[in-house]
């Protein structure tokens, strides 16, 4: 599962100045608080999955994420979410994000939200199944209050309707 010789450097792709600026808010010590934990109830091949990404993906039929307000209020990030049906393809989606290059996702959604790969895993019996609905929100959330208090309860309710047991989270 792991290679003990590899330690991922999360700033390898970042210019040194940006690395220094972002690192100053990250403590040197391991996280000391409690981390909530739900054990996996079944083996992977019986588990029902959904996928959630922060990449700002929306369906073309839905309103896109709001980047205009962020351009005026740089500390604000759109706290809403969008549902992405599992059959969605590149031609169905809009991708809006001010902090990454979105061109790759528009060419192959699987680099961020691996819908096709998880459908293959379902067909091959590697996972139980992929739910009908996956989700995106927008990852730039300096103040996550609205996301956590208003948006996530709605997402969790939708996930319960679809009997979700496990989630792959892919931050952008």
């Amino acid at each position, binding site marked *: *599962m*792991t*290679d*003990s010789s590899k*330690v*991922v*450097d*999360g*700033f*390898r792709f970042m210019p*040194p*100045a*940006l690395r*220094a*600026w972002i*690192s100053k808010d*990250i403590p040197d010590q391991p*996280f000391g*608080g*409690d*981390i*909530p*934990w*739900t054990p*996996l109830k079944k083996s*992977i091949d019986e588990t029902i999955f959904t996928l959630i990404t*922060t990449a700002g993906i929306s369906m073309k039929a839905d309103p896109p994420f709001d980047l205009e307000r962020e351009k005026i209020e*740089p500390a604000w990030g759109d706290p809403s979410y969008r549902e992405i049906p599992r059959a969605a393809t590149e031609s169905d989606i809009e991708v809006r*994000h*001010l*902090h*990454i*290059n979105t061109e*790759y996702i528009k060419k*192959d959604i*699987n*680099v*961020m939200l*691996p819908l096709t*790969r*998880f459908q*293959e*895993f379902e067909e091959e019996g*590697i996972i139980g199944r992929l739910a009908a609905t996956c989700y995106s*929100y927008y*990852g*730039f959330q*300096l103040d*996550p209050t609205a*996301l956590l208090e208003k948006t*996530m309860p709605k997402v*969790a309710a939708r*996930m319960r309707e679809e009997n979700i*047991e*496990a*989630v*792959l*989270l892919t*931050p*952008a």
Partner: protein
Amino acid sequence: MGQVAHYLEAQGFSTVTLTNTPEFHRQVGIPRVAAIEYPYGRPVGQIHDRDGQREVLLEALSVLENAKEPGQIFNLPFTWPEEPKKADWHPPEISPIIKLHLDEIKRLGAEARKAKM
């Protein structure tokens, strides 16, 4: 995303986070961390690389299945094929928050370069 993982675990969902920046784990405490040294915006892999994407995702599923307690980081053994400068992950325009803090960022960058010399 760490806080979203907290929320979901507290609501009874098991999560695994495939992240390019496991350092944030020290800030927020991510329940199950599969760390990958790939560019931002492409944690699963290169476009149209079905086999490579599958390998990464199977490792992430393995972390979900095998992590027994919160707080461990599982470093995935993959290496991005391009040099960081060629990965072209950044947005076409500097983001508003970076623009706002650009002077401070440049100053920290100059200090970091000095410290290296």
